[in-house]
């Protein structure tokens, strides 16, 4: 009888413990993260894979649901849920700037200033994820625009990497005469045109040129913008961008560089991984700062940059701030960051994975001012019209001044007139 009682008591005790403990251990915090890339074996996705797998392994009390939405799926879906204020993820991949600012203004984001202000990282990357003085996320990788140059082709034709725009033109003329496309651009996709236009405008008008137009102290059809557009058009007419630049997609531009058919590619440092991958190209490619313009206001140390990979948190995660902060901190940890084969890391202590990446990092290190990519810094209602406007630069008969004036009118309608 006693034995039976002991068994019954033991059974009840086990049942009680199971009832009490199991729900506690099962009650994990669920964190939903929306990203662009799959955490698969693609070298370009190495960081995301390391981040997702590493975070899961190091945080067993958090259930991480990572959803890869692709491009433009991530941006489209994020926009829809932000507008409807339903179905928000806890964290989403963000490029910061004005788009993130729009979400912040609408009250959809979680202010993490207190929690993230002391995380070590580059000032430019922190600035990209800051809006109106509040930090909403982290940017472990930051991209800068510069010139990818095929060093083999430069050497073969006895050319030096250009330090001035005049030298750049001479280099382009030489390549053109040798039947090599001087610059690959990918103008069909519109946005790749911007990198060179930002630099040309900067070199003519200085760092303030864009800032003044954005702050409505100057027009977008003022001198530096028009001069840069005319220079662009002049180069297109000369054939610097090939015979059919508007048919060339960004992927085509990469192929032209990879096969040695083009000598230079002015684009973001995110291409470092591919251009240093022997499986992608057998050419020796280097990364250099955009040249200065003699007599112009812009400096070689004025660098165009943007968030390459960043994350921001939404208000949906306000009750699990601790888990969000742990994710953000791990995103900025050298461990997953070291898995990245190409991008410029904002985290101190992470070694450059390749010579090309080291070159891009060195250019970034010289930056005295970092101008955010215009299409990340301007409000969304005027960014895609800017990309459309820039395609005019490739049409020999287009009136680029008129196109910029039309763009200015659109900016006036949406942001306001020049004060």
């Amino acid at each position: 009888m006693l034995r039976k009682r002991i068994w019954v008591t033991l059974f009840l005790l086990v049942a009680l413990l199971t009832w009490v403990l199991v729900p506690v251990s099962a009650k994990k915090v669920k964190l939903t993260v929306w990203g662009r890339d799959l955490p698969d074996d693609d070298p370009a996705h190495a960081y995301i894979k390391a981040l997702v797998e590493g975070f899961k392994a190091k945080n067993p009390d958090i259930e991480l649901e990572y959803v890869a939405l692709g491009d433009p799926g991530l941006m489209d879906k994020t926009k829809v849920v932000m507008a409807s204020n339903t179905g928000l993820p806890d964290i989403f991949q963000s490029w910061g700037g004005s788009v993130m600012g729009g979400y912040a203004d609408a009250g959809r984001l979680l202010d993490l200033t207190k929690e993230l202000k002391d995380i070590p990282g580059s000032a430019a990357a922190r600035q990209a994820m800051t809006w109106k003085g509040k930090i909403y996320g982290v940017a472990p990788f930051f991209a800068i625009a510069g010139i990818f140059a095929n060093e083999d082709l430069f050497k073969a034709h006895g050319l030096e990497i250009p330090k001035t725009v005049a030298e750049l033109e001479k280099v382009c003329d030489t390549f053109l005469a040798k039947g090599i496309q001087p610059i690959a651009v990918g103008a069909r996709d519109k946005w790749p045109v911007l990198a060179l236009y930002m630099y040309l405008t900067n070199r003519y008008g200085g760092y303030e040129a864009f800032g003044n137009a954005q702050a409505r102290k100057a027009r977008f059809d003022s001198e530096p913008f028009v001069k840069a557009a005319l220079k662009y058009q002049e180069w297109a007419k000369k054939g610097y961008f090939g015979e059919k630049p508007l048919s060339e997609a960004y992927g085509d531009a990469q192929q032209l560089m990879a096969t040695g058919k083009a000598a230079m590619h002015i684009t973001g440092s995110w291409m470092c991984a591919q251009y240093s991958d022997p499986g992608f190209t057998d050419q020796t490619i280097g990364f250099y700062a955009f040249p200065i313009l003699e007599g112009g206001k812009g400096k070689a140390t004025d660098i165009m940059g943007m968030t390459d990979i960043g994350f921001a948190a939404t208000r949906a995660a306000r009750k699990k701030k601790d888990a969000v902060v742990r994710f953000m901190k791990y995103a900025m940890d050298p461990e997953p960051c070291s898995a990245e084969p190409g991008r410029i890391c904002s985290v101190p202590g992470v070694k450059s994975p390749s010579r090309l990446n080291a070159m891009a990092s060195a250019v970034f290190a010289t930056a005295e001012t970092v101008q955010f990519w215009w299409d990340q810094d301007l409000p969304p209602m005027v960014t895609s019209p800017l990309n459309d406007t820039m395609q005019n630069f490739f049409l020999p008969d287009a009136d680029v001044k008129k196109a910029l004036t039309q763009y200015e009118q659109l900016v006036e309608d949406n942001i306001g007139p020049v004060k």
Partner: protein
Amino acid sequence: MGKAAAVKTPQLSMGKRKAEKKKRDWHSITFQALFLLPALAFLIIFMYYPIIETFRTSLYQTTGFGPARFIGFQNYARLFASEEFRTGFVNVLAWAFWSVVIQIPLAFYIAFTLVVYKTRITGFLRAVYYLASVMPSAITAMLGRFIFAPTFGVISSLANRLEWKWLASIDFLGNPNIAFWSLFAMATWAYTGFSIVYFMANIEQIPMEIRESAQLDGANLWQYARYIAIPMVAYPIRIIAIISTVGSLKLFDLPWLITGGGPVYATTTLAIILYKQGFVNWQYGRAAAVGVIIFLLSLIFTIAQFSFQRKSGELD
């Protein structure tokens, strides 16, 4: 007694029958309503309400965040003032026109030839022509880019190998004057298959006796097609014309995937403008205004087509 009963019985049964009929009618109405309600609710929630809501949104300035501001018809005014919209508007009308003028006669010609010259490979050819129609737009667009790409494209590579410089120099997707036609060529290949199969099915329905009597009367194939086949498949031709026209007004996938609406606005369409305004530019009000314009244009074309058919007695 028997007679009285015989007279009374029908009176009683008639009243009873009326009551039963009334009851049955109610049952029938309830029954019908039960069947209709889900479909009706579906239509109201997912079709009529969004149409009304889209029209309402088109009168507001809204980014989707914060309060919307009523601005009357300003979204429409701004759209018609913009070069992008005007180009897109003209493009879809041109696309609709050329679809009817080129694609339908071409489809009819191929269908007629396949039916008239029926051989063992007709079935195979039907499948070949239809294949492009069942392919996803993304694949068709990839093929288009692969064919027209400037350096590594099929045409460019072939022209370079054959040293046909005139062909190699054509900028199929980057020249604003040619890009529209390059896309149209791809669309003709992609969309004509359905029309061919539809026309074939209808031409095959024409009784053999009619063709034989036409042959006995000395009609050649052209006359048979002109005076017998075309009038007899006039209704299917109009149906295809409506589908092509309305499809053109909503055109999005091929231009977006192949050229992104460029160069500049050369291949943009109303649906591309709608997408860009809503999802890229955050101008929900203006995107809704484009949606309303597409809806109205489609409605006008459809009503015009049906009233034309009603006048010609086809719908009676």
